[in-house]
């Protein structure tokens, strides 16, 4: 048999010589994406529950959080075993680190979704309350922004796109501004009528959760840049 001549370098670098290692890394990557999809749907349903005052949906979000926690534990377990057995280096090491950090951010996003769902139960569980529609609109605005960032962050974790990651980070600044202006509006609303304080506080907590979700999405994008470029850009934004 003659030795085939390789046509491109990637013939040699398509994966690890030890194939099982590739499988383990791929599974880890898959777990992040699975967890990402799950928390994305958790946030989406928490917001939907808020919008439609759907208590059953809110309860569902609260219950399903255990699934997020389970995935986090599973991923952590796989990461520890992979480090122990494979001693990842270079791009593999960066990927494992990025995955490890992303998992904890995703878990916290899951917690924020639960927080929003719990507030929905609290606000709308009481029949007598009559929330102001303007405030609900504020939540929808922040919610759309947080969802957009989170969706992009999970997607770029799939394709490892540095460019898209930087776009997510840039978008976070808009969200900060939106959050500040929402707070100012809420303050005006409280000053107009003190009977609405209770509801306004709940809304503040919801938009704060959404702001946190946007922040975690930014973190995910930063981990992606670390994975792709080996560059730690945390706290280096102008």
């Amino acid at each position, binding site marked *: 048999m003659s030795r085939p001549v390789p046509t491109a370098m990637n013939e040699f670098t398509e*994966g690890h*010589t030890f*194939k099982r290692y590739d499988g383990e890394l791929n599974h880890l990557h898959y777990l992040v994406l699975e967890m990402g999809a799950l928390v994305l749907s958790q946030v989406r349903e928490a917001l939907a529950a808020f919008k439609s005052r759907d208590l059953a949906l809110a309860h569902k979000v609260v219950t399903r959080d255990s699934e997020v926690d389970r995935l986090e534990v599973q991923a952590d377990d796989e990461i520890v075993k992979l480090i122990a057995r494979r001693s990842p280096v270079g791009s593999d090491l960066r990927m494992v680190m990025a995955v490890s950090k992303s998992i904890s951010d995703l878990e916290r996003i899951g917690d924020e979704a639960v927080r929003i769902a719990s507030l929905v139960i609290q606000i709308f569980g009481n029949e007598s309350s009559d929330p102001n529609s303007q405030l609900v609109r504020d939540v929808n605005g922040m919610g759309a922004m947080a969802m957009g960032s989170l969706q992009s962050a999970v997607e770029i974790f799939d394709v490892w796109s540095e460019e898209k990651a930087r776009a997510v980070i840039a978008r976070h600044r808009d969200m900060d501004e939106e959050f500040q202006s929402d707070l100012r509006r809420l303050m005006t609303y409280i000053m107009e009528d003190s009977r609405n304080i209770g509801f306004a506080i709940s809304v503040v907590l919801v938009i704060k959760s959404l702001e946190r979700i946007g922040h975690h999405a930014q973190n995910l994008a930063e981990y992606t840049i670390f994975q792709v470029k080996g560059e730690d850009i945390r706290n280096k934004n102008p």
Partner: protein
Amino acid sequence: MFIFPVNQPTAGLSDNPVNRRPLIAVIRLSGDIETQRIARFGYPVMNRVIELKLAANNRNKESPPQEKTTQPLLFPASLARNSSQTMGEWTVSNPRIRCRNVNVHYGEKQAIQDLNLDIGDQQVIALIGPSGCGKSTFLRCLNRMNDTVVGCRVSGEILLDGQDIYRDGVDVVPLRARVGMVFQKPNPFPKSIFENVAYGPRIHGFATNKAELWEIVKKSLERAGLWEEVKDDLDQAGTSLSGGQQQRLCIARTLAVNPDVILMDEPCSALDPIATTKIEQLLDELREHYTIVIVTHNMQQAARVSQRTAYFHLGRLIEVGETARIFTNPRHKLTNDYISGRFG
């Protein structure tokens, strides 16, 4: 069904890709890994199993094939096009050795191409790369061990403390005292422990009397971390020590002639993990006084012991830099693929 007992199949084979072929066949037979990569190079399986026995016989005849004679089996020359220049920080602020435009030929075959590298004082630099990449050849250039190889030509400059070691009139005997070497297999002389260490200082005339010689032997054994284990019986044969102790004895022998630079060619590949750890700890202590260049196939070892790492591929220095950076954020794709186990 095949049952294939394998006892440390890679421990002695790493020097030479020719030696690895039988191993590849063994892995294929065991069916544990995906065989496509092996099949691509078309090794006939059964032949290689026979060759495994032949290779073992050849080694008994003490004719280990030199790295110079090996063709890179797994890495065709077409790959080298991607790596025309060294990436990373090849200069240092405190160089002990400076290599400029070093080319090494074995007859017609070029083993090292346009190598530029500084080796800093008081640090360990690890040379890594697949078999046949030129790292051992380069190591041997640093104390002119290649002089004895017929057909070997070295061009360019290798400066030790500013002096070209290849200039006319350089006596290689004192050079090799200044640039000592420790080999893959421990090779103590068939003499007592004391005589093993005393031999060098005696022939170089470093000691004027017995007491001085004794002091040198003691100090060298202490620095090599062997003193406490052997001080009660320095007359026992060096060959009666364990493998790890023998290797530390060889290091003591090197230290006894007061070198500036110590070259190590896979010093731990024949040792068990505990002996390996002791040597690694020793390297960490020795670098306070010496410049150490180590060739290793064990990338974790390179990561553990060295401050700088240089990656060789097909006779070229592909990338060099701070070890922590090389192992977290290598710039060249070949470096990343090699250290992460994507080939080799």
